[in-house]
């Protein structure tokens, strides 16, 4: 998780006195009657690493392209530092973009690719050379200045694209799936490299991604999008721990949903009557506002503990007995599906501590009241 550090420890989006750097207001974009972006409003603050997360066709790329100026919204407004972006063409905007497939100019070498944007600014050759050199150092490609893009590896191309976009000193950098073209190992290393470079240059990053792990690892905040709408904005931890809807709960990570009506509520916790669990489920939240409503209690698999029924070794607020049905060995952890008497399959992730459960083994599972979160939408 990427945290935007301030001296007072308060994040800028929590501070009413701080004005956002980038304002997206009620933006709508339709293509031939298909609404790609539907009434999206977002405030993004200086220095953030902000992610637009969603499946394909959710409108995240269209939104990014509207920021860059390749699409114009039907309605709504976009401004950066008080500057109305909708009055500007792509080549006039103080934002730069890193494209999904990097879009390097194949007929220019690395140095010329990076210098391209500076030439358009009309800078002198000495200044251009100095800044190209500095940005090559930033991405550690000094030795590759004379190479053509087709003589570089995927990771090197990615870094050239980053340097090319950053050398213009944009106020905001847009990244369209920056890591999707890299293999898994390189992707993980590059995540941290990107965060470091962002901290070093102090530029606001806005990243489009479909990869939730990537968004969680790199972002200060995430906006989850679905069908053209932003359905939740928050810090990675907030979105994972307190998903606001079933869609987000199931889209981000894996979760068990225990359904039922809220039967008992108060400041010290509430109870939801879940027939599938085989009794009331206790949660720490005060659900007075939802009293009598049908809700789902979301519980992450890693927050459920698991023990053999005959050597029951933990206490928990909610306990149920079941039988192990399916086992997935992931190396660092084990993923079990435990069937309760009601037939409900509960996903349980257990750290690999050398304790194995086998199929059809009777087990007891349990989780604390603080582990569950009520979801009413």
């Amino acid at each position: 998780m990427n945290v935007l550090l301030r001296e007072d420890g308060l994040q800028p989006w929590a501070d009413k006195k701080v004005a956002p750097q980038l304002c997206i207001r009620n933006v709508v974009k339709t293509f031939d009657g298909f609404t790609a972006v539907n009434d999206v409003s977002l405030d993004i603050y200086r220095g953030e690493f902000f992610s637009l997360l969603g499946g394909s066709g959710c409108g995240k790329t269209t939104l990014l392209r509207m920021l860059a100026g390749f699409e114009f919204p039907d309605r709504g407004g976009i401004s950066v530092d008080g500057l109305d972006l909708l009055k500007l063409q792509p080549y006039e905007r103080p934002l730069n973009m890193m494209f999904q497939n990097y879009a390097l100019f194949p007929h220019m070498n690395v140095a010329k690719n990076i210098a391209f944007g500076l030439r358009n600014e009309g800078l002198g050759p000495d200044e251009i050379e100095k800044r190209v050199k500095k940005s090559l150092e930033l991405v550690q490609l000094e030795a590759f200045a004379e190479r053509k893009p087709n003589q570089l590896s995927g990771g090197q191309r990615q870094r050239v694209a980053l340097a090319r976009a950053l050398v213009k000193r944009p106020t905001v950098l847009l990244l369209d799936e920056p890591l999707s073209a890299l293999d898994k190992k390189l992707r993980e290393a590059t995540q941290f490299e990107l965060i470091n470079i962002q901290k070093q240059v102090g530029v606001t990053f806005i990243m489009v991604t479909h990869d939730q792990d990537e968004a969680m690892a790199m972002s200060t905040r995430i906006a989850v999008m679905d069908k053209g709408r932003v359905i939740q904005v928050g810090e990675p931890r907030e979105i994972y721990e307190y998903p606001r809807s079933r869609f987000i709960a199931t889209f981000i990570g894996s979760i068990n949903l225990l359904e039922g009506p809220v039967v008992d509520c108060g400041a010290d916790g509430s109870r939801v009557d879940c027939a599938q669990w085989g009794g009331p489920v206790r949660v720490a939240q005060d659900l007075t506002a939802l009293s009598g409503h049908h809700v789902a209690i979301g519980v992450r698999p890693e927050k459920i503990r698991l023990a053999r029924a005959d050597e029951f070794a933990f206490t928990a607020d909610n306990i149920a007995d079941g039988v192990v049905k399916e086992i997935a060995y992931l190396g660092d952890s084990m993923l079990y599906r435990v069937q309760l008497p009601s037939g409900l399959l509960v996903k349980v992730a257990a750290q690999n501590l050398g304790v194995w459960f086998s199929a059809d083994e009777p087990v007891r599972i349990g989780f604390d009241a603080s582990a569950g979160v009520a979801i009413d939408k």
Partner: protein
Amino acid sequence: MNAAQSRFLLVAMSVLALLFLYAPIVSIVIYSFNESQLVTVWSRFSTKWYAALLHDDQILRAARISIEVALLSATGATVLGTFAGYILSRFGRFPGRTLFSGLVMAPLVMPEIIMGISTLLLFVALEAAIGWPHRDIQTIVMAHITFATAFVAVVVQSRLSEIDVSIEEAAADLGARPLQVFFLVTLPLIAPALMSGFLLAFSLSLDDLVITSFVSGPSSTTLPMVIFSKVRLGLNPEINALGALIILFVGVIATIATFRTIFADWRGKRKVETATA
């Protein structure tokens, strides 16, 4: 059929195909060195027809006109065809796009005789109305541009469709205005297509007979027209020499182009090898 048999069959078929394609060409080259006045009867080796060719003013003048026409019309067709191809592949769906595309591509399928007649009628009517154009080189060039543009447009459009639009978007994102994007990024990337479009238009113009016959004037006889009229009066071994020279010219250009491609590939590979080493 066993492997040896199928191999034999493959070789035999290749040889037959090559003979079918190249025997006429080889025979022209051989007979261009024939001393005899008769085209089809071999007497002995001689280069006298090449010497005669160099003193045949009619052919030399026609060759100059043909090359002039081909250069002018290939240039014009490359410019217009590039615009057409760019609009077709980059301007999205604008009103009338289908009609525009149909009109640009029509000469590809239009019988030459129709093109010839209609162009001639247009020129005659225009000349009657406004006194321009007289039928000479300029009418031939205009007619050639008309059909060669279609070929250039197809070549350019297909090359543009291979180029990722995001490369041009990246240029705009980095501050390049639309014209700068075109000249600094798009044009260098489609340059090979422009070159092949130009050569295609050049050779189409160089050997066009039908349309040229319709729109040429008395002072503008092109090489194909001269050859065709000579053939009607009985073939002269000089034509063999001329054919051999044209084949040599085309062969040299094709060889250079092939070697350049091979060399570029080889150089690219070597750099990648040193890059990964």
